């Protein structure tokens, strides 16, 4: 009895708000949510999307009598990474941060386990893909929960008219709005078909714009390609498996694809493929709906011909390039209880639905039961353009570097080994074996601990 009082008094001292006392009484069962909370969320590019999240948080804060401060931290200039690095080092900063893909695993020892939150979320929202577990669960404990804002799929987004005219592909028939994919057509949508279509479009002067630079878009495209061929650079146990036939197969494939891509793709950043599509110069890019959304504003004629659909199928399946965001609580936070309570609130179905709608369908929730919102069916023009954007059964969500141990895979990702491999044996003129040898040496360097 005495010890409990002592702990509570200490807790009261460290949370500055006088309203803490009031907060304590309104919360009976779960933790004592009160005090202050500093939140660092991803700065959404869709105008107005941040406001929806702010509103949801303020609702919660009013109910729970917590004083919150929200910062929207952009990924531009790697500001979010700077923040994560600095706060982890200094053990001070926001209570809850939005962490992209690899960072929960990387900062696992500084993050508060959230198994209790995940348990409730699983019960309410359904299961998550193995990829989310791979990224968010370290040594058996969940150290972050999947976040909806910012999570995106970078599948193909193509021009219905150009693909039909030059490549003989009717993507709106292959993946019709409001209905399941046409079985026969989607079965034949393989990487070989992709190559054939790319060649035809290149001849017609509207090449596919597949970036091969070092930013996320490019790396994720290659990640899906490598994954669908079963080409692992490092396997789940940490062995370097880059010298494999599957990797050679992929590189042979890319040697055929690169000549029909624009020559400067090796310098493309995340915005370059958007510009390629919006300007009308290209027939297809691998991107989330941001390109379509901007085209709606700047080049409506192009926008009304855009269709988002799943990636091609490879020998090991249909791999969709996926970039999930997470929300994590720092161990040094003084108000973990409140943070967890907030996590519950913004993961409720109604909250997620609002966020998806505000993002114009860009955000992808990670939970199975949350992938059926009306937003994707309704967004347009053209109507139904996003119907096939959220993941459907049969697709495998992939990230470049999987299934290597996350800390090592993160290096494969940030150092863009896959696109560099492709660059070396195409633009760089090296032989496939030499390029693979270089990759092996780089990968060896990533094993450092």
């Amino acid at each position, binding site marked *: 009895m005495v010890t409990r009082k002592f702990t509570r008094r200490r807790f009261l001292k460290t949370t500055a708000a006088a309203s803490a006392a009031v907060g304590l009484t309104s919360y009976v069962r779960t933790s004592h949510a009160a005090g202050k909370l500093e939140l660092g969320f991803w700065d*959404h590019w869709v105008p107005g999307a941040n406001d929806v999240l702010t509103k949801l948080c303020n609702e919660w804060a009013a109910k729970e009598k917590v004083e919150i401060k929200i910062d929207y931290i952009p990924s*531009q200039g790697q*500001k979010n990474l700077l923040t994560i690095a600095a706060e982890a080092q200094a053990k001070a900063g926001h209570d809850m941060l939005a962490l992209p893909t690899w960072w929960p695993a990387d900062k696992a020892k500084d993050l508060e386990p959230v198994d209790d939150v995940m348990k409730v979320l699983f019960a309410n929202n359904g299961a998550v893909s193995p990829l989310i577990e791979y990224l968010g669960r370290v040594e058996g404990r969940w150290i972050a929960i999947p976040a909806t804002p910012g999570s995106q799929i970078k599948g193909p987004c193509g021009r219905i008219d150009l693909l039909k005219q030059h490549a003989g592909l009717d993507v709106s028939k292959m993946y019709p709005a409001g209905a399941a994919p046409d079985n026969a057509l989607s079965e034949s949508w393989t990487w070989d078909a992709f190559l054939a279509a790319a060649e035809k479009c290149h001849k017609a002067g509207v090449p596919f714009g597949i970036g091969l630079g070092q930013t996320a878009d490019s790396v994720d495209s290659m990640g899906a390609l490598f994954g669908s061929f079963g080409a692992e650079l490092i396997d789940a146990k940490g062995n370097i498996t880059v010298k494999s036939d599957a990797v050679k197969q992929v590189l042979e494939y890319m040697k055929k694809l690169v000549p029909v891509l624009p020559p400067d793709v090796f310098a493309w950043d*995340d915005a370059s493929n958007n510009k390629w599509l*919006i300007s009308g110069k290209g027939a297809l890019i691998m991107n989330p709906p941001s*390109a379509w959304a901007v085209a709606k504003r700047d080049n409506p004629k192009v926008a009304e011909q855009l269709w988002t659909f799943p990636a091609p199928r490879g020998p090991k399946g249909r791999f969709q390039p996926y970039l999930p965001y997470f929300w994590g609580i720092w161990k040094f936070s003084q108000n973990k209880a409140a943070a967890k309570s907030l996590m519950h609130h913004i993961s409720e179905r109604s909250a997620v639905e609002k966020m998806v709608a505000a993002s114009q369908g860009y955000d992808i929730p990670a939970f199975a039961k949350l992938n059926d919102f009306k937003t994707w069916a309704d967004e347009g023009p053209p109507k139904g353009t996003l119907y096939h954007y959220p993941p459907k059964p049969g697709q495998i969500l992939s990230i470049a570097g999987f299934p290597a141990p996350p800390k090592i895979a993160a290096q494969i990702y940030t150092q863009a080994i896959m696109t560099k491999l492709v660059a070396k044996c195409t633009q760089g003129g090296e032989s496939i074996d030499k390029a693979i040898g270089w990759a092996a040496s780089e990968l060896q360097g990533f094993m450092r601990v």
Partner: protein
Amino acid sequence: MKEDRRRAMIWSYVFLCIFVVFFLTPPAYMLITSLKTNAEISAAVAPWWIFAPTLDNYVELLTSPTYLTFFRNSALVSVLVVLITMAVSIPAAFALSRMKFWGSATLATGVFLTYLIPETLLFIPLFKIFVFVHETTGIQLINRWWVLVVLYPTLTVPFATWIMIGYFSSIPKELDEAALIDGAGYLQILIKIFIPVALPGIIAATIFAFTVSWAQFLYPLAFTTSTDQLVLPVGIITTLIKGDVFTWGQIMSGTLLGAAPPLVIYAFLMDYYIAGLTAGATKG
């Protein structure tokens, strides 16, 4: 002879025109793009010509409280940093050029070497220092614009001191000896004699400090997060470029507006700047 001179002048004009084209093409392009609508920029029909000029980009920025906050923060930080730089550099330069103390010679040449240590190396330890300061004194430095007022002097003071050492060294020693005989203290010598004589050098250092502060990118990127604490370069890049969406029209107009203060200052004080910089440098 006269013919030679004339020919030299004509050739000079020719080459100057060429160089001006080189130097001014990007700003001209900035101006052109800032007067276009987003649709026209995306259509990429004619980069060097405006079909439907619009002042929307400028209006949106000048009426946006966010952008004006960036401007305000930049202005505040730069002015304060200039004041601090002057307050630190002038006495230090005076001390290092006129008076001797243990280590002063090394400091005078060595102060320059602080530029060798890059910002990318320093910002994580600095972050930890600021957290420590917060924990011990309660002053929050992280994510506040005034942390830049603390940090920028590390970049401006060494060079400013160095300019001023050069300038002060060129002032004849007889002047202060005469003043000393008259019974003046060192502070009086500094204020009444040195500063007036070295005014061009001081103005030069001021302009340098202002320009450097205004243009900083990495330190504000690392240390300020909330939108209302950002300064112009970081503010433009983080708010006008989101994810993979660039709003070029506003970026261009934002950049032009952001470059205006230094340009204005240069326009007015340039003669002093040139005189001050070179006198300090050549004599140092």
